[in-house]
């Protein structure tokens, strides 16, 4: 039994925007795997809800005419993992979201909900950061796009403005083309857990597979929001593929990350795991890209 004041069911994106404007205090609910838990805990007890569950128009994965990969915000984790476009262009995202909770959660949880929560541990978030994802938001003034880095304002807060709902996550062709990545979810058990640290690395190699053209790395739980380790990325760019590079790249991530001490994990432990994970994810990404270390 949930302590719910009202439930408004949106029939279309336009309708959802109208409902958002009409009920500014209401909470948007997508899959419900976070919102319902919070209501039960009493944090959102008595909430008004706007459900966007029925909005098939923002569900599914497709390619825009310019080659941009479009992931509708209501796409569930299990659909993302099994989607052929995801498997072709950004397989690491499918692998990352396949590590969320358990099968039931992955069937109801959506990528839109995962990112709108604004939590640093979200399994999709570090990969989306590492692939320079763009968030599409639809509001009373129409559609706007924003980089995912800017979308995350602070822990638990994203740049979702009055009347807006998130309608898609976009990955540009420039970002995914010839790019291969690997995600390491570091958690205390192998299922039903949140990340102690999430590490997502991807690389693009030269045609002869000998040089790193571009390397990107993002972390979850290494700071209040997911973050990129730019210093390490710059260090690796243009360098010949080698195990030494993997080691240097990994050590350098410490320049940019700032995990905290909490009862869940100590700062020094998280830093240690970040370095080791970055190294392993880098090596695996290079391997997937056809490089030899």
């Amino acid at each position, binding site marked *: *039994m949930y302590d719910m004041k009202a439930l408004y069911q949106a029939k279309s994106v336009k309708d959802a925007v109208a409902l958002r404007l009409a009920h500014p205090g209401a909470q948007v609910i997508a899959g419900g795997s976070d919102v319902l838990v919070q209501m039960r805990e*009493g944090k959102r007890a008595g909430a008004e809800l706007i459900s966007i569950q029925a909005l098939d128009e923002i569900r599914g994965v497709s390619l825009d005419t310019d080659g941009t990969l479009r992931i509708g915000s209501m796409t569930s984790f299990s659909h993302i993992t099994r989607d052929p476009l995801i498997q072709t262009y950004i397989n690491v995202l499918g692998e990352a979201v396949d590590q969320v909770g358990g099968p039931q959660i992955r069937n109801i949880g959506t990528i839109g909900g995962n990112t709108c929560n604004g939590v640093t541990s979200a399994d999709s978030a570090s990969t989306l950061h590492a692939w320079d994802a763009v968030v599409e938001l639809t509001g009373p003034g129409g559609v706007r796009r924003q980089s995912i880095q800017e979308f995350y304002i602070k822990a638990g807060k994203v740049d979702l403005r009055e009347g807006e709902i998130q309608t898609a996550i976009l990955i540009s062709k420039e970002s995914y083309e010839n790019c291969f990545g690997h995600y390491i979810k*570091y958690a205390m058990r192998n*299922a*039903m857990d949140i990340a102690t640290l999430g590490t997502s690395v991807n690389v693009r190699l030269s045609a002869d597979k000998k040089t790193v053209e571009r390397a990107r790395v993002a972390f979850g739980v290494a700071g209040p929001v997911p973050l990129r380790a730019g210093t390490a990325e710059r260090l690796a760019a243009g360098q010949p593929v080698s195990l030494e590079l993997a080691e240097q790249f990994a050590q350098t991530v410490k320049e940019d990350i700032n995990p905290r001490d909490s009862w869940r994990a100590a700062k020094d*432990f998280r830093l*240690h795991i970040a370095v080791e994970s970055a190294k392993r994810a880098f090596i695996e990404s290079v391997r997937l890209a056809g490089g030899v270390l």
Partner: protein
Amino acid sequence: MSKSVGKSVTRVDAYEKATGRAKYMDDLCGREALIAKICHSTIAHGFVKSVDTAAAEAVPGVVKVLTCFDAPDIEFPTAGHPWSTDPHHQDVADRKLLNQHVRYYGDEVAVVIAGDEVAAAQAVRAIRVEYEELPFVLDVQEAMKDGAPQIQERCQNNILAHSDVRRGDYEAARQEPGLIRVEGWYDTPTVQHCHIENHGCFAYEEAGRMVVVSSTQIPHIVRRVVGQALGLPWGKVRIIKPYIGGGFGNKQDALYEPLCAWCCAQVGGRLVKLECSREETFVSNRVRHAIRTHIISYVRPDGTLAARKLEAFSNQGAYASHGHGIVAKGMNAFPQLYPCPNVECDSWTVYTNRPSAGAMRGYGIPQAMFAGESHIDDICQALHMSPLEFRRKNLMPMGYVDGFSKNELYSDTFHQCMDKALEMLDYRKKFEEYQNQDGPVRRGVGLAVFWYNTAVWPISLESSSCRMVLNQDGSLQFQTGETEIGQGCDTAYSQMVADAVGVPLGDVHVVSTQDTDVTPFGTGAYASRQTYIGGFSIMQTALALRERILAVAHEQTRMPVSNLDLVDGQIVRKSDGRILKSLGDLATESLYSLEHSQHITAETTAQIKSNAYSFGCSFAEVEVDIPMCKVNLLRLVNVHDCGTLINPALAEAQVHGGMSMAIGYGLSEELKFDEKTGKPLNNNLLDYKLSTFMDHPALEVGFVENPEPTSPYGTKALGEPPACSGAPAIRNAILNATGVAIDSCPITPHVLYRKFKEAGLIND
């Protein structure tokens, strides 16, 4: 003539449970029930000065708000022990229905009774409690110090109890020249049972009596405790126990049945339901005692033990519950498992401001085995001796008799179990193979044994009662006071009844529900005693029933009883084996006979004055990823000698469950508390790392069947033993892999990170 015992027959409740038809507490509760919800203390220690209930009472739907100032001034015991008529052996009565002196973060301060869950939850949030805060203490040894916060007025330095064991002369023996001294401190965590169904109950008055339907393991004991807590004559209380979704010892305690019954009485006897959330279950039910153990062993270079000392400090939490029984059991196992002529053991049970610790699967033995079996491998490290050979040399030998319990090790159990397990794991080969590794990822094998006994004799009462009622068609119902809590005793008992009476299994109907108004007295499910204890009363009652059946058969067939037998539901003339009539025809004739109508039934109480050792071992193989501070449990093998298997498939399932518990205990589970406030940090299934299916290897189980001579069915404990040796086996496998001896569990990545840094395996 055993036909059913020993076969893996399908559980008698399988179809009901798999299809969702089986009724549990909540399925049985009327939809008109009022909902009771508890307001828990938000400080670890202090006094409630006032409770402002005005806002809570104003919430629409709220019927009543009751506070610690309304509760009766009666202290009652909660432990699920048989009552003792000797006041010196009675459980400690130290808690009230609601408490003004709150002793842990989560103590019961007030309770709301409302029309539905939402109103109840809103009202609980609206209650304002004013406290006078007192200093609190979470650590067991800190709590024993002079000047530590006094948690229960009755106990000096918070020491609920102390007991000791002395054998020979430890001080003199340790002076022997040439001895090697091995010392260790071992810590085990506070963990929770995590049964799938949270505790809950509902209560209503009927004809001036209080009826409580509860998710409990111990209906007859709960009846007594509800009577004590409410000041009611025990006959005015009726407890009904339907199917329950596990208990593991948490429900071997009176939990919220007394409070729910009192709420019911306060609203004129209306139906009131009180169900715990998972968060409450973690904190405000019972937990496993965290025990800190100090062991010193003086060992000769040849691997024999000269003198040993043990000190164990058991963290009781805020209320006595099962109290000292837990650590005492572990301490008493110490001199038995590895007999040594000179032993000094002391154990203390100490109140702290943590959740109350009670019974949990293993009852002190998982703690004792983690400490004891880790220490054995530490000795082996010091002696450069193989852990297998050391154990072979020193473990309790066949023929050992314990002076107190009179338990005897009738068989060569330890060697047989280890032989089987080492073969299953290919231990010797792997042990050699895993020497001298130096890579970042290393493998290791480890083993641990366990000591266990069956039931509680001679410490407490052991008796069991059984009733059998014959139907017209020759089938029968039977009832016992022992309870089905998911472990499968309804099925095992049905098999035992079928064979002992002489009827097909399909003609045996178990009355699964215990109702204290109609079920014969029995103390319930605990102490791994069900098959052993129940076996006595089932055999005795079956013999009584057979006697009555054969007497009627004599009337009906005119053959002498001495020439009659009951085989597979048929009355048989022994001399020529001819079937004279079916039991169904006999029963129909008996019941409707115009000359001598008889309802054929039997009911007896068996006195059990024995106990039985039940031993075994775990062997583990791990892969340790040192830079990632992770342990991958590759294999876990448990081998048990629990005597004759009644139902091999159920026995194996029982072992799987225990092994799963041991994996969590060894690697991931721990209830954590904020040192600054005493607040539990992870009382939910996300942050409390119960191991999942994905964290388990395929669980491998072996049995050695040495029939237990004291049992009518040759059986002995299997409920708890599977949870006892897995954690130290994993710990010892990690030691074998890395050379790093971990002195606490769970062995989480956080612990490994510190230990690997100390050992120089990680250099940040």
